[in-house]
Structures are given as structure tokens and as C-alpha cells.
């Protein structure tokens, strides 16, 4: 092992890998050791940053090619919220979902249908949309969650396509033309929702903050520990008395709700939606955001989503080549740092001890076993 890594250190790929890893692990460890007041200061700074973010001075640097506040709403804001939702499924419970865009689509279509056909109020539909996607999460999950790993991935991919093609073929929801003239949300607290993206941005930020707090609380609860146990070793978790199927279904339920919420907010801003707003590549992109940032670790996931939404827009100068570069960057990133920029702490601890590679298995099982024990108590 040692001899091996000595030989490898000459490889430029390996040294780059170490450099990237060293920096972000440094950040990770500093944060883990930081006292409470430091953390609250950082939270405060982050909130302040998010609030002033749409300012043109920041925008001129961040996005010289397109309208910065619009960009902040979508794709940046929507990607972050979707990634936080998908992180519950992929990062926390370890269920590989390649059809997450289906929930986003169901949320958006619910908003569009109820608003245009029945003239309901935005806030009412938001609740309905979350409810509808949660139900669809159960509907998708209850037959498929008995499957594992790659099978689950491909079934969810199929489900995503089924939802998209069904939307395309159903005349009641506009068929291939989609739904147009979706009304904006009503004025609230004197804030007028119209074409200006700013109010939507702040609405989305509020949603993100609430969802992040919710997800963080879940992660530290009995549910979160159950998910972790399932992620690390499903059989061990089951043996320790964790009802794995119910918890996996719960993960789908929660993830779907967050996806639906994002879709509903997004639909109320964009006026018109269409089936091809929800292609498979969007699911893949969100998954890439989660894995790139560090699956299972919320700050990492948020950074990952931000980067994946923002970088292609920032480098619009490269025109069409940005998607090509995005694809290449994913391959390179996985070769350099497969565990993501800021991996979850427990996961980091597990893979960090053994050095380069290979030793994840026993440690992972141990972590899973511990978590399962805690849940079973």
C-alpha cells in the first residue's frame, strides 16, 4: 500500500487530487471544531450575503452575460432547493434516484392546473402541490423501494420519463404545448409579485431556509439516524430492528415534497410550462450537484448546487461549449475527488482513516451498525 502510494505521487492527477482534497478537508475540519459563536456568526454572514446577493455590484461580477436576479431565482435558487431535497433521498438515505425531476414536474403542473383551471390562491395551491408530490412519492416508492441500488436508479429514471411523456400526451394539461398564462402569486405584505424576479428570489430563499432547518432537524433525529444506518448497510439496519422499508418510503416522501415545493414556486414565476422543461438531464444535473458538493452534507450540497447552476451561466462567453465543459468537468471531478467537495463528516471519518482507498467497507459497516443501534433503542 505504502510503496504503491509513493509511486503514484508522481502522477499529476494524484497531486491535483491531493491539493483539492487538502483544501476542502481543511475547511471541513475547521468547521467541525468551530465553537458555537463562530458558527452563528457564519450563519448570520451567510444570511446577510444571501439578502444582498441580488445587488447589481455583485451581479456585474457574478453574471456579466445575463440578468443576475433572474439567475439567482432560476437556476441557482431552484437548483439549491432541489438539491437539498434530493440530498434527503440520495445523501441521507442512500437511495439512488435518477427521476427526481418528476416531483419537480408534478409540483409545477399542480400549480399550473389549479391556478389556471380553478383559479385557486397561490398559497392554497402551494399546500396542495406539496401534498400531491408527497402522495406521488409514496406511489412511486411503495412498489419500487423493495429494489436496491442500480435497479432503483433505473426504475426512477423510467418513472421520470413516464411523468414527462404523460404530461406531453395528456390534452387536459395542455399536451405538448403545455400550460400558459399561469397567474403570479397575489400581493402579500405589500410585496407585489409580477415580472420582477426579486420577490420570487426572496420567497425561494425563505423556502430554502425553512427546508434546510427542517432537513437538519430530521438528520439529527431518530429518522436521520435510521436513514444513515440504511445508507451504510441496509441488511445490518434491518437486523438491528430498523423498519427499513418504512424509513426509505419516508425519505422518498420528504424528498418529493421538497421537489414539489420547488416546482410550484417556479411555475408561478415563469407563466408558461411545458413537458420539455423536465428532461432527464435535469435529474442528472441535480444528482451531479449533490454528489459534487458532498452527498449527505448540507453545506456541501448547497455549494455544489450553486456551482453547477452558476458556472455555466458565468461562462456564457464560451457559448454552447459550456455544457460540453460541464460534462468533462464532472468526469474530472469524480476522478479527483469522488466523495465530493465537502463530504459528510461521518463518511469522511470513515474513509479518511485508511488513507487512499479500499478500506471503506469495514468502517462503513461499523458506522452503520452504530447508527442502527441508536435507532433501535
Amino acid at each position, binding site marked *: 500500500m505504502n510503496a504503491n502510494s509513493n509511486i503514484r505521487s508522481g502522477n499529476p*492527477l494524484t497531486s491535483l*487530487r491531493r491539493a483539492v482534497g487538502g483544501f476542502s478537508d481543511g475547511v471541513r475540519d475547521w468547521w467541525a471544531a468551530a465553537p458555537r459563536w463562530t458558527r452563528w456568526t457564519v450563519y448570520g454572514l451567510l444570511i446577510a450575503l444571501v439578502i444582498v446577493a441580488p445587488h447589481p455590484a455583485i451581479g456585474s461580477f457574478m453574471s456579466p452575460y445575463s440578468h443576475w436576479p433572474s439567475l439567482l431565482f432560476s437556476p441557482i435558487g431552484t437548483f439549491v432547493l432541489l438539491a437539498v431535497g434530493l440530498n434527503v433521498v*440520495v445523501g441521507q438515505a442512500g437511495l*439512488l434516484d435518477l427521476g427526481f425531476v418528476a416531483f419537480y414536474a408534478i409540483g409545477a403542473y399542480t400549480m399550473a392546473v389549479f391556478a389556471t383551471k380553478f383559479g385557486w390562491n397561490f398559497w392554497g395551491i402551494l399546500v396542495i402541490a406539496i401534498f400531491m408530490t408527497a402522495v406521488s412519492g409514496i406511489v412511486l416508492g411503495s*412498489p*419500487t423501494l*423493495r*429494489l436496491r*441500488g*442500480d*435497479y432503483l*436508479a*433505473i*426504475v426512477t*429514471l*423510467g*418513472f421520470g*420519463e*413516464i411523468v414527462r*411523456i*404523460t404530461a*406531453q*400526451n395528456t390534452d387536459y394539461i395542455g399536451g405538448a404545448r403545455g400550460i400558459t398564462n399561469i397567474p403570479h402569486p397575489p400581493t402579500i405584505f405589500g410585496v407585489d409579485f409580477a415580472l420582477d424576479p426579486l420577490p420570487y428570489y426572496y420567497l425561494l430563499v425563505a423556502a430554502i431556509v425553512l427546508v434546510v432547518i427542517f432537513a437538519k432537524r430530521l438528520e439529527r433525529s431518530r429518522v436521520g439516524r435510521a436513514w444513515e444506518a440504511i445508507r451504510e448497510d441496509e441488511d445490518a439496519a434491518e437486523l438491528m430492528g430498523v423498519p427499513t422499508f418504512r424509513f426509505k418510503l419516508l425519505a422518498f416522501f420528504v424528498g418529493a415534497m421538497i421537489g414539489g415545493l420547488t416546482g410550484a414556486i417556479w411555475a408561478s414565476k415563469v407563466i408558461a410550462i411545458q413537458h420539455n422543461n423536465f428532461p*432527464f*438531464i435535469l435529474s*442528472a444535473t441535480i*444528482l*451531479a450537484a449533490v*454528489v*459534487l458538493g458532498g*452527498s449527505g452534507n448540507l453545506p456541501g450540497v448547497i455549494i455544489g448546487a450553486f456551482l453547477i447552476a452558476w458556472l455555466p451561466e458565468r461562462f456564457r462567453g464560451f457559448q*454552447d*461549449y459550456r*455544457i*460540453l465543459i*460541464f*460534462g*468533462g*468537468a*464532472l*468526469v474530472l*471531478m*469524480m*476522478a479527483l475527488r*469522488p*466523495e465530493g467537495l465537502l463530504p459528510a463528516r461521518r463518511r469522511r471519518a470513515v474513509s479518511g482513516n485508511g488513507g*487512499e*482507498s*479500499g478500506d*471503506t467497507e469495514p468502517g462503513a459497516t461499523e458506522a452503520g451498525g452504530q447508527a442502527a443501534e441508536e435507532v433501535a433503542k
Partner: protein
Amino acid sequence: MLNDFINQVGPSTVGGLASGAIYALIALGYTMVYGVLRLINFAHSEIFMIGAFAALFVVLHLGVTTPLTGVALVGVLLLLMLVAMAASGGAAVVLERVAYRPLRRHGAGRLAALISAIGASIFLQELFALVIIPEVFDRPSQGRIQVPVPRLLDRETVVTIGNTDIRNDHLIIVGAAVIMMILLDVFVSRTRIGRGIRATSQDPETATLMGVDINKVIRTTFFVGGAMAGVAALLYAMEFENLRYNVGFLLGVKAFTAAVLGGIGNLRGALLGGLALGLIENWGSIFFGSEWKDVIAFTVLVLVLLFRPTGILGESLQRARA
């Protein structure tokens, strides 16, 4: 409804078998790679696409404008097949080297491999849409539009059974798929490297200890799986006469469905699953309309996984002996 079905069942059976044979050939690549590495080679759909465009490139440079007959047809089809197999197989080996091997060396998880594959898939699609189709195929700023393929052979009815015409192109497709399947089966069960592939899919560590060169096995697996996708690509180009930069995506997902349907890791399962999927989606289209074809295919996938998750013939390459 029933009348419709009786009237259309013959033609859609023929069409279903033809597209099913193409699914089956692509499914082989998924199934072999999955058997050896336990990994969904997500970029396999782009391997297919590369083979199709390689064949088209040769067709255009041979200056085939009118359909061919006789010896010329056989010669050109064989040449195209070799080109497509070489292009797809070569691309698959490069893909493995660039996108998978670095991850394998660092012991990264399967999620990372999947993301890497998705990245490679996006990269290759965009490469064709932005560079290769506009430049090499001389279609500036039309990279995302369908590229027509010249007709290679005149379509003639060979046999008519009831109201069903069986055409020569259908026979070529199904015949080619079956022949490739038999050759592959012989390769995996009778040759030394084939034995290495079976051993690796059973137990990689023991195989290494027994002196199997794992990297060579993996390279061969990717090459052979890619070459099968190349054959499928030629047949697809010949039958549907239109290519796009993302032609592989839907076919890839369906081929994977076919692989799962037959039992992933199982070579004969891939053939059976491909044909079954082609038939089911074509028969289903009679009842529900062809716009629901893809939904039918995915629903079948979900149902199979629910009731028989190991597929029709059961999992694993190691038992696929001849």
C-alpha cells in the same frame, strides 16, 4: 379494439422483433459491463451513437447514393459493420480508460462512477452536436438537427403471411442480431479470455489470485460490448435512416430495460429481453396508441422488477455457459 389488434398484430410483431433485436444488441453491452464491474455503463448509449455516425461517415465517403444490390450490398454492409464495431468498441475502451479506471483505482463508490458516466455521456453528446456533426458532416449550425442516412438497400417483401409482409431489412436485422449473439456466446464460453470474463464476474478477487489479468478482462468486456452496440448502430441507421446527436439516450434506456427484463448479467437474457420488450411495446401501442410506446416500455420495467427482480432468465454472467 380487438379487431384492430387482429389486423395489426402481424405487422407489429415484425416491427417489434426488428426493434427488439436492436435493443438486444445494445443490451449486451450493459449486461456484460454490469456482470463484470457491477456498474451501469451510463455512457453506453453514446458508444452506440458513435458507431452509428462512424457508419454514416463511411457511407457518405463511399458515395452511396442509390440503393445497392447483390455483392456490392453484402460487401458494403460487412465493411460498415466492421467500421461501426471498431469505432464503438474503441470508444468504449477509451471511455473505460478515461472515465472509469481512475475511479476504480481510488476505490470510489458506484455513485461516483455513475456521475462520471453521466458526465462522459453529456460530453460526448455535446461534442457531436457542436463539433463533429457541423464540421465532419459538413452541416454548420445544424448540429442538433436530424442527419439523414442514404438508403442502403431496396426494401422488398420476401414473404407474406396473411396480411403481414416480412421484408428483407427485417430479416437482415434479426438475422444479424442472432448471429452476433451466437458468436458472443461462443466467445464467452469457449475462449480463454471469455473464461476470464466469467471468472471475474463471479469473484474478481479470486480471479486475480488465479492469474486473471483484471484490467485486460475489463478492457475486453468494454470492447466486445461496444462492438455489439456498433452492430446495433449500423442496423439502426439502415432501418430508421435518421441519426441525431442524442439518438442513443432513449435506445440506451430501453436497452437497459431489456437487459433487466431478461436478467442482467445474463447474455441470453439480453436477447430474450430485447425481443420481448420490442414485442410488448409494439403490441401495447395497438391498444394505447404509439405516443404511449415509451410509457409502456417503462411500465413493463417497473412490473418486471416488482414481480421478478432477477428478470426472466435470472441474474449473472457466470452461469451463462453454453
